[in-house]
């Protein structure tokens, strides 16, 4: 299949998935009279698409920077950091948090950036085990911090608990999600030009610098934009692991390892996977939907073990 045909087939598949996602919900199957139900579900569908794009490309970029196919912002604590940032703001200033559209995304970005910086400082240059153990520690710390804040703040308790379970898509409205959606698209578009640097980084820092890459700049750029993608996606979905692992892995299987193709393909697959998981969770249990994070974990966890096993062997 030519690349043009494959792209068209992929877009057609995604369009079908969007149509299906708009048809599934608590009100019943279909778009409703005059598309009323579809309109009601549209913010959720758009939020899932945007977050999926950012999660997919963020995972691919983080794997490229760390030269490690097991890196995933969900597993390395970056999403945990984003949620912790949101929890801190809600814990410290619950009233002020909702006053401006950018307050919560900014808090999420600060949290994601903090954990990214710690990950770079502590986990870089070592083995997969070191990176993942650092991520595990950061994840545990931020999750504990989020739960402590949730348990102490009565009004935000349910919100933060739902966020920790990746269950925020259900409350998506255009008023709440327009800014994170824009940020997801921005992070995705801004990460695309990193492809050449990520390809050369595959050969190690010396080689990349030898071939003319400003390694520090490229790494800083990718880490910042991955944190932005993670923060924006967290604002839409809450904490969701494995999309950032699954999407780049599948992308490399489909288009090979060149980042010029992996980055857009991972973004596309991330959008399809997250929307697919959310649609599945709503389709199977319309009255009490399963969160997209739970569905992706069921699919992603065995894959993670499979990839880790393959690398070990």
């Amino acid at each position, binding site marked *: 299949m030519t690349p043009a045909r494959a792209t068209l087939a992929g877009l057609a598949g995604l369009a079908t998935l969007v149509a299906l996602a708009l048809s599934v919900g608590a009100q019943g199957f279909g778009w409703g009279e005059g598309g009323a139900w579809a309109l009601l579900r549209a913010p959720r569908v758009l939020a899932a698409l945007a977050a999926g794009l950012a999660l997919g490309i963020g995972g691919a970029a983080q794997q490229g920077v760390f030269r490690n196919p097991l890196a995933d912002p969900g597993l390395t604590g970056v999403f945990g950091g984003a949620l912790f940032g949101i929890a801190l703001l809600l814990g410290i200033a619950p009233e002020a948090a909702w006053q401006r559209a950018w307050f919560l995304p900014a808090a999420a970005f600060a949290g994601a950036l903090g954990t990214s910086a710690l990950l770079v400082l502590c986990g870089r240059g070592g083995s997969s085990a070191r990176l993942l153990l650092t991520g595990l520690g950061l994840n545990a710390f931020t999750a504990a911090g989020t739960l402590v804040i949730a348990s102490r703040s009565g009004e935000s308790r349910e919100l933060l608990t739902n966020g920790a379970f990746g269950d925020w898509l259900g409350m998506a409205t255009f008023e709440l999600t327009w800014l994170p959606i824009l940020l997801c698209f921005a992070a995705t578009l801004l990460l695309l030009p990193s492809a050449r640097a990520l*390809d050369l980084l*595959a*050969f190690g820092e*010396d*080689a990349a610098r030898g071939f003319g890459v400003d390694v520090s700049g490229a790494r800083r750029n990718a880490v910042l934009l991955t944190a932005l993608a993670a923060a924006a996606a967290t604002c839409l979905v809450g904490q969701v692991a494995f999309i950032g692992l699954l999407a780049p892995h599948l992308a490399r299987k489909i288009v*090979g390892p*060149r980042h010029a193709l992996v980055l857009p393909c991972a973004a596309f697959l991330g959008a399809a996977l997250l929307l697919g998981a959310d649609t599945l969770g709503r389709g199977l249990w319309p009255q009490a939907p399963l969160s997209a994070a739970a569905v992706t974990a069921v699919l992603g966890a065995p894959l993670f073990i499979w990839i880790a096993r393959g690398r070990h062997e």
Partner: protein
Amino acid sequence: MSEARVEAIGLAVELGDRRVVDGVSVRAESGQIVAVVGPNGAGKTTLLRALAGLVNTSGELRVAGEDPRSASAQANARHRAYCAQKPASAWDYRVRDLGEIIGAPDAYAECLARLSLADLSERRLTQLSGGEQKAALLAMSFASLAEPYGAVLLLDEPAASLDIARQALVAAEIRRFAQAGGAAIVATHDLSFARNCDLVVVLAEGRLTAAGDPSTALTPDVIAATWGASAQAEA
């Protein structure tokens, strides 16, 4: 004397609290191949990385007319290529992808052909032997220099893990680069290769112990003093 393409005077590198390269001076002109030899741990790799501008150094340094420490990575890469001792890729690229990654697919394909690797261009790196993989990655460095004249090639043990036929092809490729007006500095354990170079630099414990044309720099006395008496058979 023609213009030096590499000129290092009193170059020193400290890694942690250890001085790994200590006051080494190296010079290479257009058309010259300079071999850097010495026992394991002598500082050959660090010297090459220093010349490539990849580690912090003190001393005077000019490579292809510029001080690589003050030029950007992009500017350095225009006139200087570097290949590490054990290059490896994190991802399983196809061989031909490597040419596209460096932005020189045609030059890379030609170089693959000269290194007898053209038939492997559709294969993935993991489908190659260790030697073939090394040669495919080495070809990236050769092909990345659009214009060999006046350019500098820094190769760290390019022949390691290659079979003798491909070692000869790589040696021919280095000579071809020099004949086109480039200057090559090659770290190697292969003294017979070093003897065919224009100049030899002998390092031991980060210091220069001998330098000059192969007949004066690789005497039995130098070899015995640098590698020990057991290596004298090499002489």
